[in-house]
């Protein structure tokens, strides 16, 4: 029988062991976002974000790469479903919300600073929140890959998961969106800058691709991959050995 009390106990255990790393990573994300507010967003920004998100993913299934900790986690008196649910909440609720809050706060501060430094420029400091849902969608997809990767890889799991996540993103942007876009040659550029100012500017300047194409592509492929990876991760956890 699934027990929310036990699941909360597992979450409490994970929080107690991870809170320091969690706060450090959020602080890094916050500072990086302030710095990025002064530069034009680029592919590099995306790669760095993925790196950060995957690093945050280290907090998920944090026990499993280490033999002794894995043994302790597997033999913790909670059901596989409770352990899975705890990790799921970390990966798909707490971490994304925290990332969005850290990024939004960083951007708010960054844009406010830009406005204060140069009064002729005004950028809405709440701009990020207008498009954050697309950002969250991307985080959720990357977190799904991370979720599975953290349980799959024992050694160098961050690097391996990072490579898988980048590969997955490249696949998503370069292959699938290209197929779904009306004007295929340039559509991927739109997608990469989907959560940037350029996206809106380009939309106003020139109708390049259906505005929904990148997000629909993300949502459809994401949903398929997300469901598959979630089911896979659960059974992987269930059959995990010390």
């Amino acid at each position: 029988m699934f027990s929310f009390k036990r699941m909360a106990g597992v979450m409490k255990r994970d929080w107690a062991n991870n809170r320091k790393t969690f706060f450090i990573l959020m602080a890094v994300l916050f500072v990086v976002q302030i710095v990025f507010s002064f530069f034009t967003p680029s592919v590099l920004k995306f790669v760095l974000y993925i790196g950060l998100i995957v690093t945050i993913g280290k907090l998920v299934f944090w026990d499993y790469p280490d033999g002794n900790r894995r043994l302790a986690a597997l033999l913790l008196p909670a059901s596989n479903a409770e352990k899975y649910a705890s990790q799921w909440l970390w990966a798909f609720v707490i971490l994304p919300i925290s990332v969005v809050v850290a990024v939004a706060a960083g951007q708010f501060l960054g844009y406010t600073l830009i406005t204060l430094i140069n009064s002729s420029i005004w950028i809405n400091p709440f701009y990020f929140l207008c498009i954050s849902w697309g950002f969250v969608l991307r985080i959720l997809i990357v977190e799904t890959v991370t979720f599975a990767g953290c349980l799959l890889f024992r050694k160098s799991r961050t690097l391996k998961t990072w490579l898988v996540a980048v590969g997955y993103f490249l696949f998503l942007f370069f292959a699938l969106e290209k197929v779904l876009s009306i004007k295929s040659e340039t559509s991927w550029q739109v997608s990469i800058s989907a959560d940037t100012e350029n996206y809106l500017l380009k939309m106003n300047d020139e109708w390049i691709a259906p505005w929904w194409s990148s997000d629909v592509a993300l949502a459809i492929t994401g949903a398929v991959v997300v469901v598959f990876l979630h089911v896979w991760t659960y059974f992987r956890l269930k059959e995990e050995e010390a």
Partner: protein
Amino acid sequence: MIHIKNLKFGYNRKSLVLDGIDLSLGAGAITGLLGKNGVGKTTLLKLIAGALRPDGGEVSVLGHSPEKRSVDFLSQIYLLPEEMPEMHLTIDKYMSIHAPFYPRFSEDEFRGFLAELEITDTSVSMSKLSMGNRKKVFIAFALATNARLILMDEPTNGLDIHSKSVLRKLLRTKADEDRLIIISTHQVRDLQNILDAVVILDNTKVLLNADTYAITQRLFFGIADGSENPDDVLYSAPSVAGTQIVRVNGKGEESDVDVELLFNAAFNAKQKITELFNK
């Protein structure tokens, strides 16, 4: 409490660590699990705890199939590994987080055991403790869970002489008729006086599984006096007091089990040991 039938397990398909293990162990004992390096002692403990899945055969522990890792099962067992995981928690925090998972956990006992093991400051981070002191914390926690099955892998490694003595006392205190404590160890001298039964693994099989009463009924441990029949001597080793021997106990003489001598005798005269204990 533990019923194992024709258990097979290997870390790869080519070679099995355990092949055809049959073992039944009841509650109310402290059982020593012995064997040479790499024979599969830790593997067997993990299989019993459900941390590994058998490749064949059946394992039943407390009426459960361990590999399912049901909550009811896991809350009744505790596996103390040889190496302790590093935790960035204070001892108090560790207890408050982990104790609720064990319904029979006693905080008073935990603090009492820690005090006996000379761990007085429970507000210190476990990551700052030495390996030996961290082990003491986990030993105290293991015993305070009041789990029905406690599995310990090399519990005396890293402990000082005083702590080994305290551990023996605590183990004897916690041994009751509803509980089974299995200790895998190479340091047989550290624990031999508290063992109620001995299981020796050899080459993927169980070489010996007997309680100390059955062992002393069949074997005599002592100093050679020259009157022994050489055919009855399973093992001998020189010592300061004379030549220590393990021989067949044909006359029902009383002696105390010397686990180290027993271990050597078992490997020195496998055939004889098998015959004696399978009668």
